């Protein structure tokens, strides 16, 4: 986020601010602006000048399906992540300190564990003869193994798991700041648990839900490893499309165009979030 802030025009700062920001600006130029500019350039010049790459991406049903998959999965993943992360963050806030510390450590450690390893672990768990199917069959919920890998279900499960910490952390940030006596006050005012949740807790946690949700959504849009391992070839997502275009087909124009669309969507979402937060801060 700080990168985005720096990239935005510097409001109300003098020349000395710019001088101080020089190293960062150079770094951004070298590793961000120039590569993106080259990508953009290649997307409108290869194989020949024009917008035909973008036209193809927008026009063809095959590519449309990739975009649809990507946004659909990212949306579902975000939703499920919020639904799981909220109770987890709440439980972490109210449970006794030592327990909360242990669970918090597990969450952080899982973020540091290799992504590939964790995704492979899910492949093993989710496959037809995997643990999850065996348990479901043995307790009699199903009698045929469910198809949980090589489709969007597998992708969703795997991505929710990977994204959870990114949702839990910002939620913890806002929920920990809520004074428990505010909820006690709500209860004495006559609010049931449900009313206290929907009328007090959720509104107060909204900034955390928004920032965590946006982060998860944007990360999900660009995810590559999990969809390619758990999603199979039939359900391609945007990151896979880009990799395929560039690596297998050496089609830099098409890959660049897809990447550029992804970048624009991402930046657009961040801009919305920045506005949202600045508007909120303004009322404080």
């Amino acid at each position, binding site marked *: 986020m700080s990168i985005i802030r720096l990239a935005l025009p510097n409001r109300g700062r003098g020349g000395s601010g710019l001088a101080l920001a020089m190293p960062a600006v150079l770094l951004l130029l070298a590793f961000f602006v120039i590569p993106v500019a080259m990508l953009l350039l290649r997307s409108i010049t290869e194989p020949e000048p024009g917008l035909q790459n973008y036209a193809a991406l927008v026009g063809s049903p095959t590519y449309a399906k990739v975009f649809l998959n990507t946004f659909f999965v990212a949306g579902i993943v975000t939703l499920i992540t919020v639904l799981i992360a909220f109770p987890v963050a709440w439980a972490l806030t109210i449970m006794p300190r030592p327990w909360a510390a242990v669970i918090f450590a597990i969450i952080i450690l899982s973020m540091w564990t290799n992504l590939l390893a964790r995704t492979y672990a899910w492949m093993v768990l989710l496959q037809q003869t995997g643990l999850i199917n065996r348990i479901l069959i043995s307790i009699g919920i199903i009698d045929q193994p469910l198809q949980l890998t090589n489709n969007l279900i597998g992708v969703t499960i795997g991505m929710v798991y990977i994204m959870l910490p990114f949702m839990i952390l910002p939620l913890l940030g806002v929920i920990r700041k809520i004074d428990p006596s505010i909820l006690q006050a709500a209860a004495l005012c006559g*609010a049931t648990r449900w009313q206290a949740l929907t009328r007090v807790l959720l*509104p107060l946690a909204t900034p955390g839900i928004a920032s965590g949700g946006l982060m998860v959504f944007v990360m999900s849009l660009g995810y590559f490893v999990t969809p390619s391992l758990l999603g199979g070839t039939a359900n391609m997502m945007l990151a896979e499309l880009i990799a395929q275009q560039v690596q297998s087909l050496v089609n830099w124009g098409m890959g660049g165009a897809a990447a550029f669309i992804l970048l624009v969507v991402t930046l657009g979402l961040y801009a919305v979030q920045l506005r949202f937060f600045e508007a909120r801060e303004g009322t404080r």
Partner: protein
Amino acid sequence: MTTPFLHINGLRKVYGNVVATDHVELAISKGEFMTFLGPSGSGKSTTLYILAGFQDPTAGDILLQGRSLLSTPSHKRNIGMVFQRYTLFPHLSVGENVAFPLRVRRAGKDEIDRKVKKALKLVRLDGFEDRMPANMSGGQQQRVALARALVYDPPVLLMDEPLSALDKKLREEIQFEIRRIHQETGVTILYVTHDQEEALRLSDRIAIFNKGKIEQVGTGPELYANPATHFVADFIGDSAFLGGELAAIADDRATLRFADGEVLAGVPLHGTGTAGDKAELMLRPERIELAAGPGREGATLPVVVEDVTFLGNNSTVTARTGWGDALTVRLNFGHPMIGSVARGDRLHVQWQPKDAHVFVKP
């Protein structure tokens, strides 16, 4: 005996190995202003929290009009509460904060409008409906909290040190408002504070808490004139304690011998003791007279003046007895000795025996 309006019956609460309250027993009448006064950690909040339903007691019961509240969850107890910390809902306007209890009770729009207006008027904040809590002072926020706690006409209002975060002047202003609101609404109030002045100013009766137990219950004047224990005597009003030994006991009068051999007879005794027990003589500063020599009537002791402080409407003289205990004497403005008393003077203090109290040391 008739059923008390609110009966706190043998309440005990244990956290791990900490006994927060023990055998708290109190009967409160309808419309009464009852204050829990005691030092920090003496179990006042715990008692209030059990009433609110945030904690379950280890033993004992809470009865409102004869019916136990313990199995009723907080949100169904219909009790109002103002907390020590600011607990307005920060995302809701003042009007919506006060409307909250009515909204969760699914009241109609007209009723909500009418009651919110009335409650805000009661705390003198009419016209503040659209303000956000963050844009209000601490005193205003606590008044909104009071309106929110009263808008649904609860039979009992709990207040847990609601003014402790405010400065002295503002505190006194709001104390005055709370008294007025109590008179206007007739609501039964349980008020917690560690500030004796606040307790004396507000309450019909005061329960003195110490180490989880109630030491004494009574009106302010009762507690001041007849403290049952050393702790109460020390907590209400500033008093001097002179250490000595019980020499003899007759009925409820004691004879006390001090370290320098000085003997006082006929002092009211609190508690039980036998000759030889360590005891303390308690004196209120405004009951002590300062004189040049030993008086003809009453009790008297020689002292050496240690310090004189002029405080406007009175002067405070700190003096020390022959065996080293300090006591203060208050001289009202105009007292002939003001101006002449000085550090190092050898004078006498005297008082009426009935104005002193002897507490046997445990």
